[in-house]
Every structure is written in structure tokens, then in C-alpha cells.
């Protein structure tokens, strides 16, 4: 009932583990797959090993999460084994990758074997990477094009909401040949310890995830659905089946779940069964709710 084909990948459900969540080791990705995910996305992988920002790198604020991990990763040269192990989970494994230039992106995509690539042009707190690359439509188009030339696997482009017009970045990705866009990455944010005046994160500022950003993400998905031909994958603050349904009604073909995995690793199977029950009760198919908010 929930199966779908997304950029050529067959998924048993539209619920995907988001990048940066339990994604550094093959064992943890496999565990998310066993928890019912339709696909899993790895931690963002770069050219060289990177240790990331100093701690605190993630804290809970109000009902959401603030993080500045700083793209810690073992480099693509040490990562193929983790992807191969993750694939034992029986679902597609999407490699999230980042670089400072089109050449770096295509070097990584040309070297790793994965079911698809997700281009991280949206991390809000990594100097020279992420959103600093992904705020420039010309650069996003160039990077997407070069990755498409380097691999035959589907290419997803993950967008930052920290821009004036997310549609223009989405259109740039589409022009570059992207098979889908993923929206949104975290929202630039900061918290300060009032006992001392210190910014709490080691990097001082970072990105917000969790329920607080869901309405922001819904609007981005809604706008991208209108503007683009390629599928939109929704992410940002999903913590239960109702959130997932809402994203799909906004125009998401599939959704990714991140922060909420911390408290419930079986969230994917929990949401699947509740979504199925909801669709049955409403006598709707997955296709019926896809973009529903645009059609009424």
C-alpha cells in the first residue's frame, strides 16, 4: 500500500532516514533499515577525514534541536565498506556527499557505489561548504551537472531554507539534471547560556531541527512542488504519521525523518502502520494525498 518508485528506486514505504542521523557506520544504518525505513541516507561524506566542530555540537532547545556537528566524516576513501554493510539492511542506501567545488563532488560520486547520491549543498554552519555553496543557483547547477556526469545513480539535491527564494535554488538543481530535491536542511539558529553569556554550541551557531521547523519546511515543500517538475522529498520536524501525511499533502513524494529517530528507532515502522490505517480509513491511496493541498 505504501510502496513507491522514487527516482527509479523501489521503496517499500516513503519514509527515509535523513542524513546525519546514525549515518556514520554501516551498523547503525542497517539498524535504521531494520527499524522499518524505506531507504537510508548516510552521514555527509567529504574528500578528507574531518573531525567536525568542538562540543557542544548538539543540544535540545525547547521542543527542538540545535546542532553544529561540522560535517565530521571519515572521508569517502574509508566509507565504501560502511555503505556495503548498510545495504545488508535490504533497503536503498543513499550516500550524502559534500564538497567545496563541483570537482570535489564529482570525485566522491565517481568513486563511491551507492543506490543514489544526495548532494549536501545546505549545511548551515560549515565554512566553504554546504549552504555557502547552495545559496548560489549557478554553483548548484554546475555541481549537480558534474555529479550527474560522474555517476549513473540518481542524484538528489538537498536544499537550504536559509535563502530568500528556495524555488530558484530548486530550479537550478533541476536544470543541472537532479532527479529530486530534498527540502529542507536545518534552519540557521543559535542559543546562548544566560548564566555566562557563552553561545552554547562550540561553533557558536548552528542549525535548528525538530518540530519547530516543520511549518517552515511545509511551506518550502509546497512552493517547490509548484515550481518543479522533479519530485520533492520533504524533511524537517517529522515526529509522527500526521506530520508525514501533511508533508505529502504539501507535495512531498517521500519524507525523511531525522531528530525524532533519537527517541524511537522504530519510528519508521510505527509511522508506516499508522499511515496505512489512515489511508484505509479514508479510502485513499498514497497517490491521492500526494500534493492534495494544491488540488482543492
Amino acid at each position, binding site marked *: 500500500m505504501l510502496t513507491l518508485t522514487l527516482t527509479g528506486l523501489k521503496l517499500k514505504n516513503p519514509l527515509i532516514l535523513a542524513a546525519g542521523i*546514525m549515518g556514520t557506520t554501516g551498523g547503525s544504518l542497517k539498524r535504521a533499515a531494520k527499524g522499518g525505513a524505506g531507504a537510508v541516507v548516510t552521514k555527509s561524506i567529504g574528500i578528507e577525514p574531518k573531525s567536525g566542530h568542538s562540543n557542544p555540537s548538539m543540544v535540545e532547545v525547547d521542543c527542538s534541536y540545535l546542532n553544529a556537528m561540522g560535517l565530521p566524516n571519515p572521508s569517502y576513501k574509508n566509507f565504501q565498506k560502511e555503505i556495503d554493510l548498510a545495504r545488508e539492511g535490504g533497503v536503498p542506501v543513499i550516500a550524502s556527499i559534500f564538497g567545496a567545488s563541483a570537482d570535489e563532488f564529482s570525485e566522491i560520486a565517481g568513486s563511491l557505489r551507492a543506490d543514489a547520491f544526495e548532494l549536501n549543498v545546505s549545511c548551515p554552519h560549515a565554512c566553504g561548504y554546504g549552504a555557502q555553496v547552495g545559496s548560489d543557483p549557478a554553483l548548484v547547477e554546475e555541481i549537480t551537472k558534474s555529479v550527474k556526469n560522474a555517476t549513473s545513480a540518481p542524484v538528489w539535491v538537498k536544499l537550504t531554507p536559509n535563502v530568500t527564494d528556495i524555488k530558484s535554488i530548486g530550479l537550478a538543481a533541476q536544470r543541472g539534471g537532479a532527479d529530486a530535491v530534498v527540502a529542507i536542511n536545518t534552519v540557521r539558529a543559535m542559543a546562548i547560556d544566560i548564566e555566562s553569556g557563552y553561545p552554547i554550541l562550540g561553533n557558536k551557531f548552528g542549525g535548528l531541527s525538530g518540530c519547530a521547523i516543520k511549518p517552515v519546511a511545509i511551506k518550502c515543500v509546497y512552493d517547490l512542488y509548484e515550481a518543479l517538475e522533479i519530485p520533492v522529498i520533504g524533511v524537517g520536524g517529522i515526529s509522527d504519521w500526521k506530520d508525514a501525511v501533511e508533508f505529502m499533502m504539501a507535495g512531498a513524494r517521500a519524507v525523511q525523518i531525522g531528530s525524532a529517530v533519537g527517541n524511537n528507532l522504530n519510528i519508521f515502522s510505527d509511522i508506516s502502520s499508522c499511515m496505512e490505517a489512515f489511508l484505509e480509513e479514508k479510502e485513499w491511496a498514497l497517490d491521492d494525498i500526494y500534493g492534495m493541498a494544491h488540488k482543492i
Partner: protein
Amino acid sequence: MKPVNAVITKVVEETPTIRTFFFDTSFELIPGQFVMVWIRGVDEVPMALSYENAITVQKVGPATSALFDLDECDSVGIRGPFGNGFDIKKGRMLLVSGGVGAAPLAPLAEKASAAGAKITTLLGAKTKDELLFRKRVEAVGDVRVATDDGSEGKHGYVTQLIDDAKNYDQIYCCGPEPMMKKVLDKVTPEKAQFSLHRYIKCGIGICGACCVDGLRVCKDGPVFSGDVLNRTEFGVYRRNECGEKVKI
């Protein structure tokens, strides 16, 4: 949760390299749980609670050195307690401690003893001066000591003191990983619990930096049963801050 401000009320020099920092804030604690200690402007590191209002720390790197520079009336930020803590069973308990590993085991000994368990502690350290919480564990049960240099008790590793493991209903262990691996190899895995140390970033089960073959040390642990660890990379390798495998 955001870090809670904790003011240091007392600093106790336990050994030449280990200090206990008492705070004005108490935590409801299951022995074995940890807190993330934020030394502002420096780093945030995981530390076992050694009392409901204290951590016991060995000076090993930049963060712990910065902590050692703090004194009474200074403060740190604390998140937690996090993790599962030890599962306290009834009957005869054997505690095996290496070095600063006594930090979570001493409150365990006290709590289990108060609940009626019979405690035996094997306490190991490099040298006599580095034996941690000897008086605390002696107050609640039998204690046998081993030192690497033979300055006190048995000359050798604490693992060499284990000769009657099957006489105990449950074994609790904390110390350097090679030592814990030796303990695991000597006991019935299902009857033993081990408190692991890994590089922890988020502390709340999200980022996955501390994973041991898919198990999150910060959320599923830090205490794991021996039979669970037997199926993992425990004792073989760990991950550095980049996520690269590093041999233990």
C-alpha cells in the same frame, strides 16, 4: 535540555591524577549513567556520575585539563543524566574496576549494598596512589586489590584476581577497554555488565557518533550486557571523532 548551570562546591583530590568535583546541583541517578559536562569555551565531554552531585575525572586531555583548572565557585554546564545505567540485580555481586572505572562502580556498590546485595570489589590501578574509592567500596563489602607495579595487593592486572566468577550472580565492570575485554572472556557473558567509553557528541541518541556496531553508547548504553557485546566490535576497535575505525 539546555545545559544546567552547576557551581562547584568542593574539589577533592582522590589520587595524583583523579579529582572529584562536587556541584550545588543533584541529579536523580542510576549508577552508570553519565552527564555531558560543558567546560565553557573549551569542550563538552561525557563523565560518569560518581555521586548524585559529583563527577570524578582523570586528567587525560585538553578538556579534563581545563576542568582541573576550575575551583570552588567556578561553574560548568551539565546536560543529563543520560544513558541506561547498571541493571542492579540481587544476590552476590562482583565489581571489577580498572583505574577511574571505579567512578560509576562506587555508587553502584553503595546502592546495591543498601538494597541487600553482597558486594565483592576487585580494585585495580597502575600504582597504590592511583587506587580510587577504596574506602567507599571497603565500607560496603570485600575488596581485593591489584596494582600494575605491585606497590599494593597483587602485582599485576586486576583481571588476574578473577578466579571464582561463577560464584557470583552478576558481574559489573568498568575500566580500560582491553581490561574489560579480558573480563568478558573470563566470565559468563549473560551475567556480566560493562560500562563503555566512546567519543560522544550529541549524548541523546541522534547523531550516531558513538555507535558500536549500531548500538548507541549514549542512549542504548553506556552499560551493555556481555552477550550483546560479544557480537560487536567491542575490544577490537573504536571510532575516532571523524568516524574512522581505530584499533583498540
